[in-house]
Each structure stands twice: as structure tokens, then as C-alpha cells.
């Protein structure tokens, strides 16, 4: 029914041999992983961060009509991470992939990096809130769209705050929202594909 909760994923992880435990009862499993498998969760976080970095780099290769246009495929990893990791570990994944991708692309500490970190952190917060409170009604697709819109809005707000008096936002906002909608839906479906198959 809909989109399985954390417990079901934890049992998937168990079966896949990530934790080494035999699948026990659903309710028990998440507790087992949370209590005793800290190191493996860290490894898993690192694995997800690596995947997200791959998506970030791969995406930067695609030619874009406008520089702000991004599909946000790395966001799909964040979506998946919400299902298998604790929020603070997801945050670790988000931050490390942003920093590592910018190091690889050579934009570390540049304006673009600050913007992407802003976007990543703001969309993380919104997606976390939505995942925790509205999971029953919203699938990863909706969460992803909301996250993408938040990310774009936050970045534009930062640009407006830094470059005071620019009236750019009025003209840019509809395009940004359109990109966010498309990219959010694409990465949302990718995220859901991952949650169902990884």
C-alpha cells in the first residue's frame, strides 16, 4: 500500500545482508539496527553519499539552457536515505555530497557552492518535515517536488539578499519553479525507483 515505511526497508536491509541479522519481527528490526549496527549505518551513509556525488557530477555534464536548471537527481538519493537512515545521518549524506561534488567540480567555497549548500540544506529540512509528518499522504514524488521548490526559492532569496535591489526574482521565479516541478518529479520517481529496488 503506497510507499512502505522505514520498518519495511529495514527488513529489506536485513535480508540483503547489510546488517547480518536474520529477519525477525518487523517492529523489532528497526530497533536492532538502530541499537547495534551504528558502524554499518555509517558505511551505508557513505555509500549513499557516493551515489549522490555520482549523480551530481553526471548531471553537471548534461548541457542546460540556463545555468540554474538542474534535475536534482542527487535529491533522489536523499529521498532514499530518509527511508533507511536516521535524519542526522541523512544530513551527513547531504552535506558530504554537496562538499565532495563541489570539490570535484572545482566550485568549492565559490558562490555556486554556497548556493547549492543553501538549497541542499533548506530542501533537506522541508523534506524531513514532510517525510516525518505527511508520509502517509505523500509519496517521494511529492516530497521531492516540495524539496526542489524550497531549494530554488531559498537560493533565489539568498541571491536577492546578497545583491540588494535586484528585480531579477520576479522574472526568474516562474522559470525556477517550472524547473523545480519537472526536476522534482523526475528525481522523485528515481527516488521511488531506488526505494523499491535498491
Amino acid at each position, binding site marked *: 500500500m503506497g510507499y512502505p515505511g522505514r520498518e519495511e526497508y529495514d527488513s529489506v536491509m536485513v535480508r540483503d545482508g547489510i546488517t547480518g541479522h536474520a529477519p525477525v519481527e518487523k517492529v523489532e528490526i528497526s530497533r536492532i539496527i538502530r541499537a547495534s549496527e551504528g558502524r554499518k549505518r555509517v558505511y551505508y551513509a557513505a555509500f549513499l553519499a557516493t551515489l549522490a556525488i555520482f549523480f551530481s557530477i553526471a548531471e553537471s555534464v548534461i548541457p542546460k539552457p*540556463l545555468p540554474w536548471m538542474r534535475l536534482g537527481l542527487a535529491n533522489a538519493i536523499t529521498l532514499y536515505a530518509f527511508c533507511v537512515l536516521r535524519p542526522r545521518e541523512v544530513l551527513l549524506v547531504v552535506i558530504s555530497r554537496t562538499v565532495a561534488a563541489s570539490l570535484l567540480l572545482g566550485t568549492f567555497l565559490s558562490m555556486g557552492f554556497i548556493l547549492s549548500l543553501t538549497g541542499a540544506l533548506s530542501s533537506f529540512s522541508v523534506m524531513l518535515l514532510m517525510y516525518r509528518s505527511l508520509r502517509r499522504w*505523500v509519496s517521494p514524488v*511529492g516530497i521531492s517536488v*516540495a524539496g526542489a521548490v524550497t531549494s530554488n526559492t531559498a537560493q533565489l532569496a539568498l541571491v536577492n539578499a546578497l545583491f540588494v535591489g535586484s528585480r531579477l526574482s520576479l522574472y526568474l521565479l516562474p522559470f525556477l*519553479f*517550472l524547473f523545480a516541478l519537472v526536476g522534482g518529479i523526475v528525481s522523485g520517481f528515481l527516488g521511488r525507483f531506488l526505494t523499491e529496488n535498491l
Partner: protein
Amino acid sequence: MKKLKIGDYIVIGVVAALVLMLFSRSFSFNGAEKYFEVTGIDFREEYALHEDRVIEVEGPLGLTRVVIEDGRAWVEDSPCRDKVCVRMGKVSRPGEEAICLPNRVIVQMKGTRGGVDGVSR
């Protein structure tokens, strides 16, 4: 692949509505409320963008001739010494102006200063 949930439709619908609203808003801003304003010493008049005409403005030195044509306005001739106003060229975008200081004449395009000058990659 499981079906989308109701929340997805709500989120997508809200965002799509926002996109449409913002698009219509930012495009209705374009093209509207632009006009030329010609100011002299005892003279101030507004002119429509696309009505070609020649305006003669009386100043301390004499008559300054302003021409509006094809949505552009410029100082054709002025009795001043340096002719800076003539060389300021044609006013074609909001915020641009051609000014004759000696004869106290200002030709300006008023309106929302909009759009993007350029995109750097």
C-alpha cells in the same frame, strides 16, 4: 510502480498553479506602462510609445527638437554648443534618457525597468 498519493497531486497542483500565476504576472509586466516623458523648463508632457511625432521644446537657448519614431525617441537638434544631447543617441528602453543640460530638456522613457540584461555562464 505504485500510484501517486493524494498529497503528490496536491503538491504538484499547487506548484503548477504557482508557476502559471507567476508566469502570467511577470509577463503582464512587460510592455505595459511604458511612455516617453519630455521635460523642459516650463513643460512636461507624456507621449505614447508608438505615435510618431516631432516635439519642439522651448528652452533658455531656443527650440530643441525631439523626435519620436518607431518606439524610440531622440533629440534631433538643439541650440546648445556641444550637442551632447544629440549624441546621446536614441532612447529605446525604460530608464534610458537623452538630456540637453544647456537648454534644460530631458527625454526619458518611463516604465518598469524589467528583464534581464544578459546571462553569464
